[in-house]
């Protein structure tokens, strides 16, 4: 090797840029970079020129103008006099809502279907195969529209619940109404609701009692839910501390102290006290005028989108879970059985934790897909960010470019956040190599 002669030093010739392997890749990269830069310059220039030709400018001031339209599903306060920006935020929250709900149910469905597809029971495993193949191989849009159509066409109208011998009646002890406008379920209301809504409610109740009219149902505010979540979180943390202490005791003495009743008490009692203090009551939906009021209204559009996204993505997740499980070597389960572990223990304690390493990376992309697919909301009129910012707002203000860019930015940031969070989780489950 050391005897290799140095190539004679010769002067650089232009043809070397192409024929000499030392320079060729460099040349290609430089040319590609120039072409890409030109492409971008052309796109940018074209956009500017065309905007100019149309007499349009590029500004985001429209976001502060009054929106003028109403939105049916609002997670925050909004009315037709709010700004376009607020309408966009309402839409973003609706997108987030259906994405989060969808990811949760898709994961549950997917894990079940993936595990069951490996079942030794012929019927179960084949049923799961039918589910997976049926949903994976039919376009998502069709499932969304199908569920929506079934809901609107075959469920009873609210007015069918009326009269002495109604055509339809509420389910589950008169607490749930399934109508062709969606499903109404009971909600929690707080007599002593915190913040402004509590005072308003008190005033409304006093007025109703004075007039002898119907007492309004108790409200619920974000503050109430935050308090409840805080109490529950603290309780769970305390219960964890108890478990940790039990672990320590077990390590030291070999005897595990019984802690389940302490943990149960820690979780149940503070929450119950908080619920009692807030005056929690269950508010049931009831028929009033044209529609049901009160309770939570799960609109057809939400149900169709949520279910279809969950079922569709769940089928993909099932395959990912199945692949993850099959990737764990057979010896692992044989060893577990040899130790006398039952099959579900083996699955939960031995196989799944190891399969997770294989499952999580592709799972991330399923979550991203689900989130972006939620923009198919357009098919059923679900008011997501595409419908508010990317639909009505663009249409009313003529700001196509600005609106689309903002929307793209929203989806980009959301996707990066999801994959960032999942990567953190992935890092915590991955095999630690020593």
């Amino acid at each position, binding site marked *: 090797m050391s005897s290799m002669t140095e190539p004679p030093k010769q002067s650089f010739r232009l043809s070397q840029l192409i024929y000499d392997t030392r320079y060729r890749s460099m040349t290609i990269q430089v040319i590609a970079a120039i072409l890409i830069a030109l492409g971008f310059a052309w796109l940018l220039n074209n956009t500017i*020129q065309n905007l100019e030709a149309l007499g349009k400018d590029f500004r985001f001031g429209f976001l502060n103008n009054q929106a003028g339209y109403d939105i049916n599903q609002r997670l925050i306060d909004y009315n037709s006099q709010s700004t376009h920006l607020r309408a966009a935020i309402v839409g973003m929250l609706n997108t987030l809502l259906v994405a989060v709900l969808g990811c949760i149910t898709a994961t549950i469905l997917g894990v079940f279907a993936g595990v069951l597809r490996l079942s030794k029971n012929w019927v179960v495993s084949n049923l799961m195969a039918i589910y997976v193949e049926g949903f994976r191989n039919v376009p998502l849009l069709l499932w969304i529209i199908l569920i929506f159509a079934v809901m609107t066409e075959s469920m009873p109208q609210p007015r069918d619940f009326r009269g002495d011998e109604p055509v339809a009646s509420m389910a589950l002890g008169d607490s749930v109404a399934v109508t062709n406008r969606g499903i109404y379920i009971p909600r929690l209301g707080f007599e002593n609701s915190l913040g402004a809504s509590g005072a308003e409610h008190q005033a409304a109740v006093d007025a109703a009692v004075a007039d002898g009219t119907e007492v309004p149902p108790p409200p619920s505010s974000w503050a109430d839910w935050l308090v409840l979540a805080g109490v529950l979180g603290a309780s769970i943390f305390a219960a964890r501390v108890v478990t940790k202490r039990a672990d320590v005791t077990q390590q030291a003495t070999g005897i595990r102290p019984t802690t389940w009743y302490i943990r149960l008490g820690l979780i149940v009692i503070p929450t119950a006290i908080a619920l009692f203090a807030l005056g929690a009551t269950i508010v049931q939906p009831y028929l009033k005028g*044209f529609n049901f009021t009160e309770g939570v209204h799960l609109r057809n559009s939400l149900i169709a989108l949520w279910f279809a996204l969950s079922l569709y993505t769940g089928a993909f997740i099932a395959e990912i879970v199945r692949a993850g499980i099959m990737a764990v070597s057979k010896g692992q389960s044989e060893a577990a059985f040899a130790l006398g572990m039952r099959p579900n223990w083996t699955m939960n304690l031995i196989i799944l934790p190891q399969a997770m390493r294989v499952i999580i990376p592709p799972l991330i992309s399923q979550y991203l897909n689900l989130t972006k697919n939620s923009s198919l909301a357009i098919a059923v009129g679900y008011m997501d960010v595409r*419908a508010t910012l990317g639909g009505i707002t663009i*249409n009313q203000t003529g700001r196509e470019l600005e609106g689309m860019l903002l929307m793209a930015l929203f989806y980009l940031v959301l996707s990066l956040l999801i994959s960032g969070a999942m990567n953190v989780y992935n890092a915590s489950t991955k095999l630690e190599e020593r």
Partner: protein
Amino acid sequence: MKNTVILGAMTVAGLVAGTAHADTLGDVTDRGSLNCGVTTGLVGFAAPDANGVWTGFDVGVCRAVAAAVLGDSNAVNFVPTTGQTRFTALASGEIDMLARNTTWTFSRDTDLAFEFVGVNYYDGQGFMIPSELGVSSAKELDGATVCIQTGTTTELNLADFFRTNNISYEPVPIETNAEAQQQYLAGACDVYTTDASGLAATRATFENPGDHVLLPEIISKEPLGPLVRHGDNEWGDIVRWTLNALISAEELGVTSANVGELAGAAGDNPEINRLLGTEGELGSYIGLDADWAARAIGVGGNYGELFEDNIGENTPIGLARGLNAQWTDGGLLYSPPFR
């Protein structure tokens, strides 16, 4: 050297882009056909018939323009647009003009950078509701579920109406009239609201039109008319004066039956002569030949004929002329003179 290449490319790109939207008339004649944006289907206004041929009141305007410009009323590509897509389609140049029961409003005319060339139907927003609900006024609609097409003035008027009357409603946003019809008939909404003409046209296609009533309230002004992009005044003039020619023709008694004869030779009425090009050279002012208006009128007749054939009282839609009568009959139709 790198910089010069980029600059050079940018100038070329600039030249290409700069000419993109300058001359609609030239584009249409080069292409040999007119791209006209219409509804996705609203019987009477614009919908394909059993043979797939687009017919209707708005379609008539597209065909008249095609006949005036290209001499062929069939040289039209009808581009179906929804309430939400129509403005982007026009602004981007995908269509040359839009004739899709579109309301002339301040912001559309200015901020959205369009030019409404006139009004071909004076309308207002109404409500349709099944008669079995026993509602007799829109003020009784508190709490109702309302189907609306998104991206329309309807949506904004509705929000204003319910807010000012201090009543609440649940909007169900919908893309097209066909979808709205299906949702409404399935009872997924109590009320359907849109332009009163659109309600009449929709109701006419129901199996039992008699089971549905239009509420008396008309909550807005909806002057519907064809529109083009800002910035091409020559093209705007052509579309505007084609519409005016149809309206003037009715006023002057020029019909599809007699237009051939009247255009053959100059007659006694100088305005008819100028309109049909037997006198003066009005056509050349808008870059067309002398017969342009005669061809436009020859397609589906004058404004009155278009109205009667597509949406008038003898059709299932059964709209009365009302505000859309000629000014001489107490209506609002008033074409500026051809002079």
